[in-house]
């Protein structure tokens, strides 16, 4: 499969290049993650790779680091062609990668973690003192403040990242790849990280960092490469670029605004959220001070790059995650004090973002999946005994109504396509009479035909007077369906855009963390 692109490399340019990728293509099934990408990184520069989620940034870097093999294309390091079969080859060649998810051992000290796999030993025993001294020396030299003797389990995420960087340095890396390094950092920590990156460059090292955060790319990088949908858009010196141009290149012009026709039906407030805060699984604030309302007959969209608090918002509203502060009322009832079952009873229908985990039981039949959550009610059960006749008939009706492509109600859900599984979820959630629909990524991984059908169904629910909160990472979906779009960044609602004049550029700016004061009706 691996074939090099024809044409000899241009020798005069490679001398100054630390990394040169040529024509890299990587497919996962029919999905093309990287499509003929060329990337040249000069030695001694900070090179940012920017693009939306799913643009192919991480895939490209994983290929460079040997974690993935390209289907086509070639890699040159310092002007020499190389096949990077696995990460150990990359490490030997002077590459180092700091991943998004840290791989540290909590019960070991900082120095032990840094030297894990290449321990300094004396008389066959690990020489902790030497490891601590060497770690201290490196951390001083590059301004990576850590206490080498402390246990990693007690440290913050920011410090964990410094340890990962130290690990890379100890292994002799001259080119350091960082995958979304600032995603887990506080602004102060980010600033310190940038200083460290500059000190690397000052020592003649090369830094490649992946980001979807405009501000920091403008602040720290020398050169920017923009990726979109697996293709390279451009590589430009940062100094020549404005933020507007960058957003332009990132988001592109291909957002389709095939807006659904609608009648204005502003009814009563069904959901009111006020000053809502929540923590993520690492107990860091993930949702910050969110306030908004959803009325009946209204679709409110939540836009944002994935991982900016949308998941936590959905989980708090459905009772799956405790709020750490603030309130949310569903028809006057305080959600934050209720269990998931009680919230559903109060009038919530939830189409979860990950349908295979929270949406369906993949081994159960369609009938059983549609039954879930209402099995204790007549006519589905009487006196604790299920009435499978009624359940089957109901499933059969819904299969027709929602156009679920299956052989029958007894079919196991795992045999269906992604789109049809999603329709099973919709069939269950949209028919239980709830006034508030929480819909998270309804068309993720769904083919275009099913997408249309799902959008039709959401509009039908709107026309029936439901209040709908639609969370999506796809701007065109929000633009087509939402009456108002709230944009989230870093757990905060950055601003609001009316669906009628949704402007992908303004939304894109807010998604990248640029506040829009004139629009920030909801931010305090």
């Amino acid at each position, binding site marked *: 499969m691996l074939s090099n692109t024809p044409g000899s490399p241009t020798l005069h340019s490679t001398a100054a290049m630390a990394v040169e990728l040529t024509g890299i293509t990587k497919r996962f099934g029919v999905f093309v993650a990287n499509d003929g990408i060329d990337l040249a990184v000069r030695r001694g520069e900070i090179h940012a790779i920017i693009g939306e989620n799913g643009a192919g940034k991480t895939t490209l870097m994983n290929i460079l680091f040997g974690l993935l093999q390209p289907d086509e294309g070639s890699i040159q390091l310092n002007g020499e062609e190389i096949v990077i079969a696995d990460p*150990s080859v990359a490490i030997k060649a002077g590459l180092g990668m700091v991943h998004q998810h840290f791989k540290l051992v909590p019960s070991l000290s900082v120095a032990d973690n840094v030297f894990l*796999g290449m321990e300094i030993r004396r008389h066959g025993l690990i020489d902790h003192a030497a490891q601590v001294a060497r770690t201290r020396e490196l951390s001083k030299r590059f301004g990576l403040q850590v206490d080498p003797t402390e246990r990693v389990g007690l440290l913050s995420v920011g410090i964990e990242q410094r340890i990962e960087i130290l690990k890379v340095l100890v292994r002799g890396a001259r080119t350091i790849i960082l995958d979304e390094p600032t995603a887990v950092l506080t602004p102060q920590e980010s600033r310190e990280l940038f200083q460290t990156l500059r000190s690397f460059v000052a020592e003649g090292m090369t830094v490649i960092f992946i980001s979807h955060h405009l501000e920091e790319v403008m602040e720290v990088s020398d050169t920017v490469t923009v990726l979109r949908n697996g293709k390279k858009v451009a590589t430009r010196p940062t100094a020549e670029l404005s933020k507007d141009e960058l957003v332009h290149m990132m988001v592109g012009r291909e957002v389709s605004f095939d807006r659904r026709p609608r009648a204005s039906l502003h009814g009563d407030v069904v959901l009111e959220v006020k000053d809502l805060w929540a923590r993520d699984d690492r107990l860091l604030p993930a949702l910050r001070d969110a306030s908004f309302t959803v009325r009946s007959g209204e679709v409110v969209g939540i836009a944002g790059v994935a991982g900016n608090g949308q998941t936590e918002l959905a989980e708090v509203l459905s009772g799956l995650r405790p709020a750490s502060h603030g*309130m949310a009322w569903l028809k006057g009832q305080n959600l934050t004090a209720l269990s998931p079952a009680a919230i559903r009873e109060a009038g919530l229908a939830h189409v979860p973002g990950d349908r295979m985990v929270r949406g369906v039981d993949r081994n159960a039949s369609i009938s059983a999946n549609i039954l879930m959550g209402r099995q204790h009610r007549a006519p589905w059960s009487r006196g604790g005994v299920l009435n499978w006749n009624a359940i089957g008939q109901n499933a059969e009706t819904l299969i027709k109504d929602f156009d679920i492509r299956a052989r029958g109600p007894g079919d196991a859900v795992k045999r269906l396509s992604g789109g049809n599984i999603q329709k099973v979820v919709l069939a269950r959630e949209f028919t239980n009479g709830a006034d508030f629909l929480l819909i998270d990524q309804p068309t993720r991984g769904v083919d275009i035909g099913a997408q249309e059908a799902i959008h039709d169904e959401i509009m039908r629910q709107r026309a029936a007077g439901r209040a709908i909160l639609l969370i999506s990472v796809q701007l065109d979906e929000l633009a087509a369906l939402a009456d108002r779009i709230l944009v989230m960044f870093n757990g905060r609602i950055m601003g609001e855009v009316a669906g009628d004049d949704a402007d992908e550029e303004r939304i894109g700016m807010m998604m990248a963390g640029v506040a829009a004061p004139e629009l920030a009706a909801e931010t305090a």
Partner: protein
Amino acid sequence: MEILDRLVNVALIAATLRTTAPILLVALGGSFTTKAGIFNIGLEGQMLVGAFFAVLGSIWTGSALAGVACGVAAALVFALVFAVLVVSFKANEVVVGLALNILAGGMTISLMKAIFGTRGSIVGHGIVGLPKVQLPGARDLLGSWAPLISGFTPLVYVAFIAVPLLVLCYNRTRLGLYIRVVGEKPEAAEALGISITRVRYIASLLCGLLAGLAGAHLSLGYITMFTENMSSGRGFMAVAILIFSNGDPLKVLAGCLLFGFADAFSLRLQTFGYPSYLVLTVPYVVALVALFALSYRARPRVIAETLESMRKLLSVDKNAEPGGKSPS
């Protein structure tokens, strides 16, 4: 006070050390698998075959040492089977451990029947037990306290010396470090090119080695005979200790001493005419209380976090009482 003096004295402490040794050996073996991230309930079976084959080896060769070697070899075979199934074939470790325990129980009984034609126990037949080690000078040094360090069979000393050796192993050797990493964060080990399979095999075999020694100690040191199911739950006790000590050698030692003391104490109580059924529950009651005390203290951090934020909520925002109904 007089009763207390008769209950608690040098002999009781020496008895504690004796009852602690077999459980300590097997628990230290289990420490390797626990640290390597394997939940090994097969300790009981490994110990039992160790005890049986130690007796067999001692009869065949007429040497106690060769007997110990036989016991260890048998336990290693069991440990290897366990590792092949659990590590290589990724079978459920609880099922495999249980199966091997049952196999050990049945196998020793049928072999006993086949070889000695008896059921119940093997006594005599020329079993050579391990000699008691009388440390020279112990009596001069400690006087009446001498039984605390002298007069035990060799594997008692091995058990207690193994504790600091394991501490050293986990903290200062590469193998110990890798065992910990593989158990605690396998993805980190993988990313650094440490073979998880290899480390887990080594840990399983080290476990078999110590479990075999524990078994040999039971049948050649503790007493000189083999009886059906003579490990009598010590392997499971060790598993309980491992769960709440997380395999740390010093905590394992503390847990084993607690059990050993409860064991010795209950033996002592029986001589005072307390109902023996009640007295025999002492070690298990101690185990339950210890488990409860430890798990209560280790409540997850998240609960503390939630309590914290609730406190904040109640003190900062007066509207935010739980159950508040009306939207502002």
